[in-house]
């Protein structure tokens, strides 16, 4: 088709229509995009006057200049992406996306045979329309804010995972995406649905290849754990130093279902991520882990929500952040317990390690409690390197930088020990060591 678009240079209604036509989408998807686009046009960009945007100033970002849709060119995988794929193995399926295009998709025959679906979002819309329609943009709604509306209007690429009731997909599914195009914006959408009593592990890793220049990524991840299901979900982002990311990861955890979430932030210039668990059914549980390591002038703005909407629910959050140079990290964590959510147990812990004089860490743990028969605690601690620990190690003959590296590794060890995926743990240890060597 000669008139197919390969790139949209402007954010217009026409561009949204062209994008929908490019993927030959059914009417309900196109209409949803246009409705979202109208909402996007109505809303104004958030400013630091908005409570949720106090820590991130968008004035450095000019979204109008970023191309909202860029088709990825075919070609070999960059070495870094290949290495990441190999390091995170073994996997039951790998989906590789470059810019907004899927370049390879693989799912083991055994896993596929059990009914597990693992596909590019556009392929999913085409092949499993009823299933996608039931869940797409239901958890994260287009009218929540400017960026959600934008995402809903122009989302492209992303991952769809569906695990039928009772199926255990024990080996991880890996979604890899990278870009090497400057001045482009990306809107990947991930939807993971685990049917009743099923189990699945999904690792989503994204980064920048060789290219430089400003990029913007607005990912939305919707995780649905039906009654008794278990989802283990990992987001690993290692964007380039001129990348902005404004994302949402939201989970709906049903009766007796469990979510284990890990969010790793290493790259990016400005990263603002909302990580939210809605404990919707009795017996639901959510473990939320976060690892952030910022250096240079990186800016991280992490909002978390443990939303207890049903009785007998459990959540346990641990976010660990190290900042050096002039990096800034902001952690804003909310535990909300709704009326009637009795017997809630909610824990939240944020630990910040400041490695150099110019680095900053902001910590805002919050509680909003509207039930009384419960146990909620949060703790936050910010400290510098402990000189006594360093002195002890140095007295054993270690040079100072080696001692510092060990202390930082020790700082993150408490978190990594809770990640049962050994290859991922190794990769993250390596990433931390690389950071410390710079």
């Amino acid at each position, binding site marked *: 088709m000669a008139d197919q678009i390969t790139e949209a240079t402007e954010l217009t209604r026409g561009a949204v229509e062209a994008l929908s036509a490019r993927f030959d989408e059914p009417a309900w998807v196109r209409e949803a995009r246009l409705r979202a686009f109208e909402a996007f046009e109505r809303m104004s960009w958030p400013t630091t006057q908005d*409570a949720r945007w106090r820590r991130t100033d968008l004035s450095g970002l000019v979204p109008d200049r970023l191309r909202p849709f860029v088709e990825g060119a075919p070609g070999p995988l960059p070495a870094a992406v290949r290495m990441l794929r190999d390091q995170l193995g073994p996997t039951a399926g790998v989906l590789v996306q470059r810019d907004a295009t899927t370049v390879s998709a693989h799912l083991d025959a055994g896993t596929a045979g059990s009914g597990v679906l693992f596909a590019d979002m556009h392929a999913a819309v085409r092949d499993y329309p009823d299933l996608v329609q039931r869940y797409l943009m239901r958890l994260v709604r287009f009218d929540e804010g400017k960026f959600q509306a934008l995402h809903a209007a122009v989302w492209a690429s992303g991952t769809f995972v569906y695990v039928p009731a009772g199926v255990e997909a024990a080996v991880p599914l890996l979604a890899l995406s990278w870009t090497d195009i400057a001045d482009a914006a990306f809107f990947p959408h991930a939807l993971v649905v685990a049917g009743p009593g099923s189990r699945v592990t999904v690792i989503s890793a994204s980064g920048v290849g060789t290219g430089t220049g400003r990029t913007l990524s607005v990912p939305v991840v919707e995780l649905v754990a039906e009654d008794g299901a278990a989802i283990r979900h990992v987001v690993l982002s290692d964007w380039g130093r001129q990348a902005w990311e404004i994302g949402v990861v939201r989970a709906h955890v049903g009766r007796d279902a469990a979510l284990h979430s890990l969010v790793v932030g290493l790259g990016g210039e400005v990263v603002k991520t909302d990580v939210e668990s809605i404990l919707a059914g009795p017996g639901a549980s959510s473990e939320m882990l976060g690892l952030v390591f910022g250096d240079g002038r990186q800016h991280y703005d992490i909002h978390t929500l443990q939303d207890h909407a049903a009785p007998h629910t459990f959540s346990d959050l641990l976010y660990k952040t190290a900042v050096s140079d002039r990096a800034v990290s902001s952690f804003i964590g909310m535990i909300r317990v709704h009326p009637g959510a009795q017997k809630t147990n909610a824990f939240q812990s944020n630990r910040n390690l400041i490695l150099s004089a110019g680095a900053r*860490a902001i910590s805002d743990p919050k509680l909003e*409690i509207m039930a*009384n028969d419960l146990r909620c605690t949060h703790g936050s*601690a910010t400290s510098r390197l402990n000189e006594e620990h360093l002195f002890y190690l140095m007295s054993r003959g270690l040079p100072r930088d080696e001692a510092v590296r060990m202390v930082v590794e020790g700082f993150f060890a408490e978190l990594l020990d809770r990640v049962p995926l050994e290859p991922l743990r190794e990769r993250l240890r390596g990433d931390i060591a690389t950071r410390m060597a710079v």
Partner: protein
Amino acid sequence: MAVTNQLGIDLEKYKWGFREPENYVFKARRGLDARVVAEISAMKDESDWMRAYRLHAYEHYTQRPMPTWGADLASIDFDNIFYYIKPTDKQANSWEELPAEIKRTYDKLGIPEAERKFLSGVSAQYESEVVYHNLKAEWEKLGVIFVDTDTALREHPDLVRQYFGTVVPPEDNKLAALNSAVWSGGSFVYVPEGVHVDIPLQAYFRINAQNMGQFERTLIICEPGSYVHYVEGCTAPIYTTDSLHTAVVEIIVKEGARCRYTTIQNWSTNVYNLVTKRAVAYRDATMEWIDGNLGSKITMKYPSVYMVEPGAKAEILSVAFAGKGQHQDPGGKVIHAAPHTQSVIVSKSISRDGGRAGYRGLVKIYEGAKGSRSAVRCDALILDDRSRSDTYPTMEIDEEDVSITHEATVSKVSDEQLFYLMSRGVKADEAMNMIVRGFVEPIVKELPLEYAVELNRLIELEMEGSVG
């Protein structure tokens, strides 16, 4: 007509804190404009700088938006408030007009009849003059000044002008601007270098000689090496027909001095209590806020300490109790702007019967404030499933060489605790009382004895009917 007592003190003068110009008739009216501000200043016969200050603050007030965070302030009707009432105007015309729960609380607290009438606003007179003046003589020997702020402005104009508005400028927030425009009353305390004031200065004795203000302005100056404990208000419920209390408190604690400021607020439950309290602590100085909030409809109050020189210390103890229809949004702010500064914040909040209580705070550590430490601990107790607790601490740390901790817990009174006490023969409601008293004990033990006793009685009163 001057009324003098046996000591030759002009009671009339001390009763109101100023003499009214005889030919001036101030007509109390609702609402606020620049004319009312100018009239207030003229009524008080103030000097030009204060009148200009008030008018400037009023200008700022009109331009500044209302805070949109925190409690819901939308229902305050600023046009329907008396911004200045002559002290002789009564709040209520007779004892019978008082709401029943206020009368009941007075009974329970065992407050004498005459005092009740003063506190409730039925009478503007309460003869505690003798106590007050005996103490006053003691202070004067030491060079301590303790008068209401209007008197201070007349008798110590240079001192007031030097410090007034330096800690909380009118531009600080909309409500501070409002107070700066229409302030009246409040205390002025000056403690000379090295002087330790052993008996707490209680505004209670002094304000008996004038009506409790809605827009009080308090200024405390502690010269180097001095010590003072100032106690604001009292635990008895303060009844007022006006729905807004907007005070500003400024405290300057100089090198090596220590100031402790205690408030137990028990406004009637129609009052919006929106107060700006701030202290500046210099080298090795210590500022302590002890802040109890039981009354009011909504309280937003975050006593703060700016530690601007090395070795300064801050301690904030906050206790809040929210019952039916109440939203207590207290907290504290500590600003570490110098090396080796230390702060501790302890907050205890209790909510029951649909009330909402919590903590909102800030720990700010500027770059260069090396070796600073801060510890924040918030505990909340929710007594039934209709009530709510919020915790909003904020930490902004711009310096690596520091140690910061924050912990918060929310829990209910455990069945095990109740069962244990009841198995020892303690009745259910008394057991509940004991547990709640134990919960607030770390703060109550810091209060002067009579306040601790009254606070415990008040909590008991609030707790009535909380079990089955």
